Structure formats: structure tokens, C-alpha cells
């Protein structure tokens, strides 16, 4: 491969990498926007669910939810 051909090939690969990077940014933007749409009410109430689940009350709530879910499933079955 000549030097100029190698430069052209590198340019092509660089351009491809740049396009790939922008495509990834677009996917990331779309994913974040979708996540924001899903978490609207948590943000609206300024409620950090992750922080809450790290408190002692978090596991209690989770256990209660599991118990309710199992009762619900039992009744549905």
C-alpha cells in the first residue's frame, strides 16, 4: 500500500469512527431522554428512589412490596 493510499484508508477509518461516535451519542441521548420521561414523577416530587432504597426503610418497603406481590400472584393463580 502506498503512503497516500494508507493516508486515505486511515482518513476513511477515522471518518467512520467519527460517524460511529456520533451515532453512539445519538443513542445515548435517546436513552437518557427516555429515562427522563420515565422518571418524570420522581423528579417532579424530587424523590431520589435510589437514595431512599439505601436507607433502612428501603429494604422494609421492598419486602412489603414482595409480600404484596406474592399474595397477588397467589390470588391470580
Amino acid at each position: 500500500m502506498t503512503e497516500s493510499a494508507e493516508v486515505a484508508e486511515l482518513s476513511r477509518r477515522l471518518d467512520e469512527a467519527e460517524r460511529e461516535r456520533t451515532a453512539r451519542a445519538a443513542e445515548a441521548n435517546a436513552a437518557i431522554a427516555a429515562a427522563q420521561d420515565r422518571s418524570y414523577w420522581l423528579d417532579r416530587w424530587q424523590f431520589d428512589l435510589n437514595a431512599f432504597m439505601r436507607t433502612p426503610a428501603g429494604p422494609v418497603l421492598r419486602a412489603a412490596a414482595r409480600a404484596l406481590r406474592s399474595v397477588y400472584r397467589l390470588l391470580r393463580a
Partner: protein
Amino acid sequence: MPRVSVVIPVKDGGPLLERVLAGVRAQGEVELIVLDSGSSDGSRELARAAGATLIDVPPDQFGHGRTRNLGAERSSGELIAFLTQDAIPAEGWLAAVLDGFSLADRVGAVYGPHLPHPETSPMIARELTEFFATFAADGRPTLQRQGDPTFLSNVNACYSRACWEEIRFPDVDYAEDQAFGARMLERGWAKVYDPRAAVLHAHDYGAVDFMRRYFDEYRGLRDTIGHVEPISARGLAGAVRRGVGGDRAWMRERGYGPAAQARWTARSAIHHAGRGVASALGSRADRLPGSVQRALSLERRGGSQAPTAQGSSRERPLWDEVARLDREGPAPLLDPTAGAADRDRLHIAVVVPPFTRGSGGHTSIFQMMMRWERMGHTCSIWVYDPREQSHEWPAVLRRRVVEEFAPLAAPVFKGFEHWYGADVVVATGWETAYPVMLLPGCPARAYLIHDHESEFFGTSAEALWAERTYSFDLYPIAGGAWLRDLLAEQYGRHGSWFRFGVDHGIYRPLDVARRRDTVLFYCRDATPRRAVPLGLLALDELWRRRPELRFVLFGDPVPTRTTFPYEHLGIASPETLARHYAEGTVGISLSLTNYSLIPQEMMACGLPCVDLAGRSPEAVFGRDGPAELTAPEPLAIADAVERMLDDREAWRRRSEAGLAFVADATWDAAARQVEEGLRAALRERLRNPPAPEPAAAVRPPEPGP
């Protein structure tokens, strides 16, 4: 002219409304006005059947003070009585009100007691009765002047037109009547409490809703008259003990049976304890997060925030950015790859200041971003808020962008903690230029300049800092030719420019009758460059010349104090504005720096607009183009409006020229122009050395005739 106008704000008035309207009609001849905020329960039909004049108030524009001011403006009586949709006037109410005004000179308001319904709970019945008894211990009308209680309630109050015109209700979320009462006494007016001017009115809620109601009430009192309810465990216990004891005595006097007494005693304890807690919380609401306030409020209102600290510390975060840029210098730019400027898809990161509904600059930015996304680009929004003006979290900000400005797909970030670079980062205001200079991971930076912002300030550090941004290594994209030329002449900056667009789907001639008497004024008082005082003086002059004219003011949520009557639209939706533009006769929008979006939107509806000569409007519209330009003097502006009112031929010429001027002013075109500017920013980076080159800059065609 009727002696008395009765004004009733209504939203789904329910079964009591019919009794209220009948109660008013039974008093005698009055003008009856119902201000309806989107009722769907038959209230509108009831109002019409009662012979009321029905005025529509869009629910998003309702405000306790603002809407009542509108009712007063539309009424014609020399006395204006306000009732609520659940306050039934008792027999003799109107006669007592009229008597009250003859009790002394300068009586500005007459009000009366709220009587409980037979089924009202003993706590509320006693509270109402004992509260109003304090105003007239001997049961006779009482004159109140400065130093006396300021209490006034728009559940049942009547005002003299002269007093209302002088004071007007403030545009507050709650307790506009209390604020009015305090102010009128300060101004030397008197008010009269007459026990005979009574209405049947009592709010009976469940225990929890009572607490929330008190929370709203005391939050309003804090906002309007600064009252803070004291709280202590001992004080609360005492209040509950006294309250329950009082209720029990009240019940005994009125013959309640033992079972009823026992039941109501328990409710009474809960009621008084809840009231103590809720009133203390309400008057300290500014310390609570918006979400907690909303949860505690019966009106579901996030309400008052802690007032922003004034003074030096307020600017501290921004100073940090200014100092950091001085210390560290700009973040290094990435080397753009060949062809980067011509790639079909770019990641465009846009840094914006916090926004409020109706902001013209944000409308322009988000409208264009939506179109960039349609072109295939991906965008992200970064809100830079050094003054912490916005307390909302990112998902809420994103929802607001989508609902209030444009349906964007972009995520919204607050601050730069999660910054991940972009092909081009765009500053959109002078403050945002500082963090943009510090952001890494970008091959190019651009500056979307909507106005010459250093002119917004007096002699100050802010003026210097704003001016300095025009010399930053940011590719400038100016909003309009006037601004482009200014940047070139004053700062030697040569970039590209774009023309503001118009949403022709909304702003267009509508099928509504054009009035001959209506002057619309863009009264954005919070924005000094819109020369509101100048416009108000012009309107005052017009009102003196032609008192029959109808004035409609918009653009600011807070009504402006004026010497003339007007209708206050607040920050109206685009659809509402378009309707007013389509039926109005002349618009006034004054621009001391760069022109605003408003004149073009007025023109798109066929409404001739008066603006200032010798400034950006002249550069944009031309000396004798679609706008009626005039000297920045009140009488000259009034003359210009009169020309449009009287000279039908001149009106038609301006209207047609306006429609032609804006025909090709679209957001699609603006988005393309700015997109070209962003590509030019990348191209400029590819040049070596990267010196600005005016001849190569993107130049859209000259707008206008």
C-alpha cells in the same frame, strides 16, 4: 350605568352556584358578571340563565388578583362587589352594602360576615361567628381606618371603583384581598364592616383537607402581609385545649346531644391540632421544597420558594466561572477530522440559561433545535443556572421544554457533572459563554447571540463580563442583520446570522372580526429593554385622547400599575395571543436593543405594529416597511397609534406589508441558517491558521424589502 356590579369567579360552581345567582338577583337591579375558568358542570348555562355576562378566563391564566381585576375592568358599576361561587347573599345584603358607603367620606370597601350553613361543623361555625363578632362587638356597622384591622375577604366584599382603580389587586397566588385591605388603609381609604351585609359561606372539609387549607391560607398570609404563626409544643397544647373547650361550650349552648358532643369533641381535637401545625408550616413554607409544599397544599400548588438572596453572594457561582476562565484559560479544543463540517449528522450540545414560559430567546433556540433533530442531528440541552433560579430536576425541565416550547427528543441536564462532549457546543447567552469556554471534548464552539446583552446593564461588572464574551473564541451566529453589523463594528467579530422565524401554524390571519378600538401592548416589565414605561406613558396619552379605546397588555405575569384601565393577559399561550393579534387594531412592541419576536408574530396575524425608529427595528424592517416606526417619545408613539387607528389606507398598507415581510420568515429557514453557522464553526477550526474570515462567512439573504 348600574350602581353595583357583582363579579363572581367560577370554576365548576356545583349546586350552590344556582343559589348564589338567585341570591344576587333577589337583591335588586345589579350588573352580574361571571368569570368562568373552564367549567364543565353546567355552571356556564346557569350563569347565562341568570342573565350574567359570561367572561372566559383560560384556566392557565387564572389568578385570584389578576382575574378579579379583569372582572372589575369589564364591569361598569360605580361599586364592584365580589362574591365567591359558594357565597349566598343573605336578605338585605345589597342594601347594607350601599348603606356602608354612605357612612363616611372615602369609604373604599364594605364587607360583611360569612355565616355558617345549618349543617356546618361546630368548630367552623363557632370560629366564623366569633371571628366576625370581633369587628362589631355591638352589632352595628364599624368604620375602619389606618391602624384598625386590615382584614378584607373577597368571599364577600364590595369596592368603590375609585378605590379599586387606585389600589388594584396584586397578582399573588393567595390573599389578594388581605393585601388590598392593608394597602387601602395605608393610602387613606376607609372600609366598613357591616354585620347585615352577610353571606352564607363556610368551608367544611375533612380533617386532612382542613389542614391543607390552613397551610395555603397561612402561606398566603406570609407572602402578602408577612405574618408568621408562632409554634411551640406548649402553645399548641394550649390552643387545642382552648379550642376544644370553646367548641364544647358552643355545642352545649346550642343543645347538641351527648352523642353528638362526643363525636364532635374528637373531631375538634384533631381539627385544632391540625390547624396549629398546618398554619405554622404554611407560614414557613418558603423553607420547604416545592414538592413538599405541593403535597401539603389543598390547591396542589408548589408555591413560594425561599426568596433569592440579594446582594453579593448571589453571583458567587458565576464569579467562580469567570475566575476559572481567567486562571485556567479555555479548555483545549479537539482537532476536527477532515470532513467533520460536512457530515450529515452532528451532536449539537446547547447550553441555555434557566427558562420561563414565554421566553422569546428560548422559543427561538428550542424551535431551531427541533428542526435540527428532524434534519438528523442529535442534540442535548445543558441548563446553566448559577443563581439557582430553577429548583426543578432534569426530567421536569425536559417535560417543560417539550410542553412549553417544542417537542424535542433531546435529554436535559442541569449543570455539567455528566458532560460528555459534542461536535459543537453552543452558548446562548452571555453567562453561558463562560462555562462553554471551559467545557472539554469538542472540536468547535459557537455562540448564538440573540441580543447585545452588555447593554442590559448599567456600569457594572456584569456589563464588562457580557461585553467580554463577544471577544471569546466562539463562532458568533447573530440574531438578525443589525446585531451582525454591531458585532462586526464594535468587536471585529464576523460570523453568520439568522433571521427570527414565525410559527405560521399559529400566527396567521384568523377568521375573527377585526376590532377598531383595540391596542395591544407588549408589556414585559421584567425586561427593561422593552421600554415598558415609555409605552405606558404613550397609552396614558392615548387614553386621555380617546377614553373609549380598549387596551390589552401582555408579556408579564404581574399586572402593571397604570393610570388607565386595561385587560391583563399575562403570559398568554401562543394561540391566545394569535387570537388577540387577529382581532386587535394596532400592536405596540418597543425594542431598545435587538428586535423581539413579537412584531413579526403580530405582522403574521395582519396586525400593524408600532416600534421605535433609529434602532434595530429600523435596520430589520426598513424605514417605511411593515412596521410603523416612531421616535422614542410618548406623544410620538401615541400619534403613531392614532395614525393606524384613523387612516384606514395606511393601516391596510402596513398590514399587507407585514404579511408579505414575514411570509418567508420561518423557523425552518432559521434552523437551516444556524445549522450552516455551526458547520462554519467547524470549518473555521479546520483552517490553519484558524482566523475568522468575513468573506467566507455564511450570509443568508438580506431579509425584508
